[in-house]
């Protein structure tokens, strides 16, 4: 069983924006961060950035976005060789002595930037949605780090 309070807290942590000390650069917070089912695109847990009222999207919009992202992900994932874009990153890492790998995709949804990856071996997808000022590369880095934090959910199958 998924502990929803913990997952929600974790997702809320992933919302934080990035600021660089070396060069004067900082980003807005992510507008939302979602764990969704890779089977039907329904939301399992989500966090929305409430600090910026304009960026906060309604739950229905978020559900719709999740569904669309999952459909696109499904297409890309089922035939990786036929992908028309280069916006897919292979990512491999080790945790607790086991090797894991997944693919991280970046998509543009209307004026938003999004980034998603399957939590390895599981029926779950982690999705970040940010405004268009958030660079894709940073989203991918953020995703790489966030995936490590979700190691308890590796291999989670939906009942």
């Amino acid at each position, binding site marked *: 069983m998924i502990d929803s309070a913990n997952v929600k807290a974790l997702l809320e942590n992933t919302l934080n924006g990035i600021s660089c000390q070396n060069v004067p650069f900082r980003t807005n917070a992510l507008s939302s961060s979602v764990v969704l*089912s890779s*089977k*039907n*695109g*329904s939301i399992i847990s989500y966090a*929305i950035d409430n600090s910026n009222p304009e960026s906060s999207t*309604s739950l*229905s919009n978020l*559900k719709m976005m999740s*569904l669309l992202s999952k459909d696109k992900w499904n297409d890309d994932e089922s035939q990786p060789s036929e992908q028309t874009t280069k916006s897919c990153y292979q990512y491999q890492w080790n945790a607790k002595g086991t090797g894991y790998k997944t693919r991280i995709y970046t998509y543009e949804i209307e004026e938003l930037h999004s980034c998603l990856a399957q939590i390895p071996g599981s029926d779950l997808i982690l999705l970040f949605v940010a405004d268009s000022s958030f660079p894709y590369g940073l989203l991918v880095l953020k995703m790489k780090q966030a995936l490590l934090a979700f190691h308890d959910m590796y291999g989670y199958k939906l009942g």
Partner: protein
Amino acid sequence: MSTEEDSASKAMILLMGLRRCGKSSICKVVFHNMQPLDTLYLESTSSPSMEHFSTLIDLAVMELPGQLNYFEPSYDSERLFKSVGALVYVIDSQDEYMNAITNLAVIIEYAYRVNPSINIEVLIHKVDGLSEDYKVDVQRDIMQRTGEELLELGLDGVQVSFYLTSIFDHSIYEAFSRIVQKLIPEITYLENMLDNLIQHSKIEKAFLFDINSKIYVSTDSNPVDIQTYEVCAEFVDVTLDLFDLYKTPNENNDQAVTRKANRERPRELKNIAELENGVTIYFRQMIRGLALVALIRTNGSDKDSCLTIMDYNVDIFEKGLEEIWANSANKQQALSLE
């Protein structure tokens, strides 16, 4: 006479009929959720009584006692008939109805002379005791005799609608729904909006219900199957009963907590049920005491994605309703200023 002046701005329905034909029972059952059997013990109504009923439009239903003579000069029936949108005449089908038809014809003649735009509706009431074949016979007989009476009075152009009703099933609600729909000026837009909604969301049938009375204010242009309507009306009941049962008792104590929860997800009334045959019933609260109830047939595709799309579309639909309402409210204000 301030009550009558108040009601002048509202659409008014006049409920008439001979004594003991079931007018008060109809009011009690439709607007007060009274159990039909309890209406057996209702006292005779002696003076006109009014029920206010507010949905997309403000309605008032005025019940006139059966024994009243409307054409006594003391009674201001001319102004009354002028302010009325629909006249509902109740005929007791289990009784001798010749007197009722004569009375009806006289009333129609008067009403039509005073207010030619009036909608005339006839409820052939208490049909629960009649067999199926006999119902049809009674309806045909009443329609024919009413037509003859009107012809004698030189009024053959008047549109009269007939409904077979009983308070022991859903027919009275359906009849009232259709009567009320005739009084809503925005009905064509509503129907179009619902048509669009069902086309894009795998809905089989959608109703816009008034939650309190279970009258439907609008539906899509597909034919209404009374069983579908019954299922939806029962679903409204189930939803409200469960909702009332599980209200959080400490809503006032933990205001900070509830407020936080409210900000994240505004409290709205919504209910979804899945049946074994693959049909999903969807209930969602709309503006002004209305609720959308829809039957969704997923046809093998994933239920959750259907509901996601449904939610998204219904959000848009609700915004549409709000705009229609804002416009009609403005229009009414402009009218009342003139």
